[in-house]
């Protein structure tokens, strides 16, 4: 009997310890994510790349918590009086993981890589504002712009410096100057980054970071509970809730730089009707979506900026959820009701895409739009949304939210005036976007962006919904994780206490 009770106690204790979770004692921080990291290319900027980019690579500058650029690989910089030239002095003594010295030639090689359309760099459209990049010596870079470029530090935030000699193949290799270097990369399984002892800013405290691909979020959370993982990000409020009551874990939030939207394809006849688009906007229950995903931390967006952005205009932050008005708008639209529309979503990319689609579907059914949900895999989503542009409405999320509006408006597929993914074309919009992004004078920028906000809310080709909050849970022993302005994890100063 005594043996039996001891056995039961031992099993119970073991189960408790397993359930409680403990951080790795070996100095290795294990981050879980459900998205597969296909390669080590820092310019693709897929969600799966986010925990990799700032740890393998460095940038010329990086925003601090107050959104002021701080020196990284560039030690200092100076604009010419007309704002058309930027001269940057590069840090001396920096080496790539291979041991090769970092010079201005690598900045030029990185820019050339970004500007080559064949490489599919997400920031290419933004980088095209740099019309020339000269390297007068190994530690000086001179950039020239056609017009003043106030959003240039947004570009630098995502302009990762790669080794010009190896930049053609990111499948297994990544020669950056970041605080960690690649030890192994098995797509779909695990990517291990070892500490870079020669890091210019001092070697990190962690021995290594492992980016572990989990089959699904549930498996990820169970692994966190059992101590197999140390950190999980990109969680919903309901996922975080049980951990917030457990002293073995730390929960928190970081800016994500990502916001949800509905993209309305203006090639679809019904969506060419502004009253139909207005009805969809009025049927979008942003408040409910924000609460459902992020609880008390959830906020709603009618314009794609935070209220502290220079482009924010309170008078145009005017969306409302009103099904009666939506019904009236549809009746006035002259369209034959009910209107049949499809919404593209991909649970594989983000479960929230489909949840938004289901909420919208239920509300639109009440006003006279039958919305069918087309839930496809990640490849199908990209092909339908980006390549073929054959969607009708897409549940989508855009990046660069929360930074300089020029980055957002000029580079993201949903907002850029040229080649907009919705098929939207408006010379007045294009002119205002350009004006806002090509003058350093604050009042002129504000005036231009006010006009952008007016047109944006009037034409409603994209409906911002909510900014994403990057909710994360880590083992209690994990400390000092940094986050970039885009919400990418930075482990340079992270520690695991004993």
């Amino acid at each position: 009997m005594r043996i039996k009770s001891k056995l039961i106690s031992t099993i119970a204790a073991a189960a408790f310890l397993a359930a409680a979770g403990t951080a790795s004692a070996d100095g290795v921080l294990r981050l879980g994510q459900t998205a597969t990291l296909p390669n080590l290319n820092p310019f693709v900027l897929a969600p799966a790349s986010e925990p990799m980019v700032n740890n393998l690579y460095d940038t010329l500058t990086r925003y601090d918590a107050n959104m002021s650029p701080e020196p990284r690989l560039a030690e200092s910089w100076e604009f010419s009086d007309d704002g058309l030239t930027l001269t940057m002095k590069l840090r001396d003594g920096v080496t790539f993981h291979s041991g090769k010295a970092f010079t201005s030639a690598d900045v030029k090689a990185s820019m050339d890589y970004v500007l080559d359309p064949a490489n599919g760099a997400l920031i290419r459209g933004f980088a095209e504002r740099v019309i020339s990049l000269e390297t007068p010596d190994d530690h000086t870079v001179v950039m020239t712009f056609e017009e003043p470029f106030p959003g240039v530090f947004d570009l630098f935030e995502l302009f990762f410096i790669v080794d010009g000699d190896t930049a053609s193949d990111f499948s297994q290799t990544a020669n950056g100057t970041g605080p960690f270097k690649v030890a192994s990369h098995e797509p779909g399984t695990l990517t291990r980054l070892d500490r870079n002892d020669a890091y210019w800013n001092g070697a990190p405290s962690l021995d290594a970071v492992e980016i572990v691909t989990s089959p699904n979020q549930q498996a990820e959370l169970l692994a966190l509970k059992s101590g197999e993982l140390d950190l999980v990000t990109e969680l919903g409020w309901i996922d975080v809730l049980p951990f917030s009551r457990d002293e073995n874990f730390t929960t928190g939030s970081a800016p994500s730089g990502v916001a949800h939207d509905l993209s309305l394809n203006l090639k679809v006849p019904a969506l060419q009707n502004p009253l139909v688009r207005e009805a969809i906007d009025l049927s979008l229950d942003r408040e409910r979506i924000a609460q459902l995903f992020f609880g008390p931390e959830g906020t709603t967006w009618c314009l794609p900026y935070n209220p502290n952005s220079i482009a924010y205009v309170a008078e145009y932050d005017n969306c409302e959820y009103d099904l009666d008005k939506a019904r009236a708008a549809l009746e006035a639209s002259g369209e034959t009701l009910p209107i049949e529309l499809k919404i593209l979503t991909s649970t594989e990319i983000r479960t929230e895409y489909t949840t938004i689609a289901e909420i919208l579907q239920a509300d639109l059914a009440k006003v006279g739009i039958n919305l069918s949900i087309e839930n496809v895999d990640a490849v199908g989503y990209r092909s339908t949304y980006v390549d073929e542009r054959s969607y009708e409405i897409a549940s989508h999320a855009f990046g660069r939210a929360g930074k300089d509006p020029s980055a957002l408006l000029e580079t993201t597929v949903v907002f850029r005036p040229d080649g907009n993914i919705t098929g939207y074309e408006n010379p007045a919009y294009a002119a205002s976007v350009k004006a806002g992004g090509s003058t350093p004078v604050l009042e002129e920028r504000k005036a231009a962006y006010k006009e952008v906000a007016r047109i944006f809310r009037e034409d409603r080709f994209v409906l911002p919904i909510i900014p994403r909050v990057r909710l994360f849970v880590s083992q209690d022993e994990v400390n000092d994780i940094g986050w970039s302005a885009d919400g990418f994890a930075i482990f340079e100063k992270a520690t695991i206490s004993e």
Partner: protein
Amino acid sequence: MDMLTYLWRHRGGRVGLILLTFVILFAAFAPLLTPYGPNEQIRGATLSGMSWAHPFGTDLLGRDIYTRTLFGARVSLFAGALSVVLGAFLGIFMGIMAGYLGGWADAVMMRLSDAISAFPAILLGAAVVAILGPGFVQVAIAIAIAQSPLFARLARALAMIEARQEYVEAAASMGASSGRIMLRHILPNAMGPLVVQASLSVGIAILLEAGLSFLGLGVQPPTPSWGQMLADSLRFIDIVPAYAIFPGLALTLVVVGINLIADAMRDRLDPNHVTGGGK
């Protein structure tokens, strides 16, 4: 009627009949058994626990889980029945051709059947859905293809046996075409074991549909299906355990019911099956 009477007198068959009748009745009269629609979102009722208003609780979007479980039965039963009809049609066609005609027809049909059998059903189903795209009909087709070799092999063996019978030789000597002999003479005489196989396959098909829906490849949201509900419930199992329990229980009951009926039918219809007696 004779078969129903037999099933009612068979101990296992009776239990199966009761379970299946309950599920069919619940599915058929679902709108009368709940005040909510299957996709009706009740504001402020996110992930509420079990209550009088919501006996099984509600999901993330405030939809009543009891209602969705009832309506999910329609998807499961219909997917099971449709895929078995399609699979049986395809497999029996291949099997009887192979068994009666022999030669190249036998070689081609059976190698095709072997090729399909080489893949686990869920993997084959996932591959077919990957090609056709997710959706109810696509899933039924995927399951039908995965199950067709079961019918093909059985139909081939039965056709080979029947082909040697005197009534077939008599029909052939009177000038009946091969098609007529296969359809009018062999098929009716081989139906007993094939019906047993079909009834056994319904349970498997329902589980496969649930499996594919669990993987997100089946019926698309917001249409409720038990597999999809089980997948959704994983995230919230700590908060609303009923979310996983009741669709899982419903799935278990319907599969057990169908298998009990199939066992009882096998006792009656399959001449090769030796039974200890279910009565």
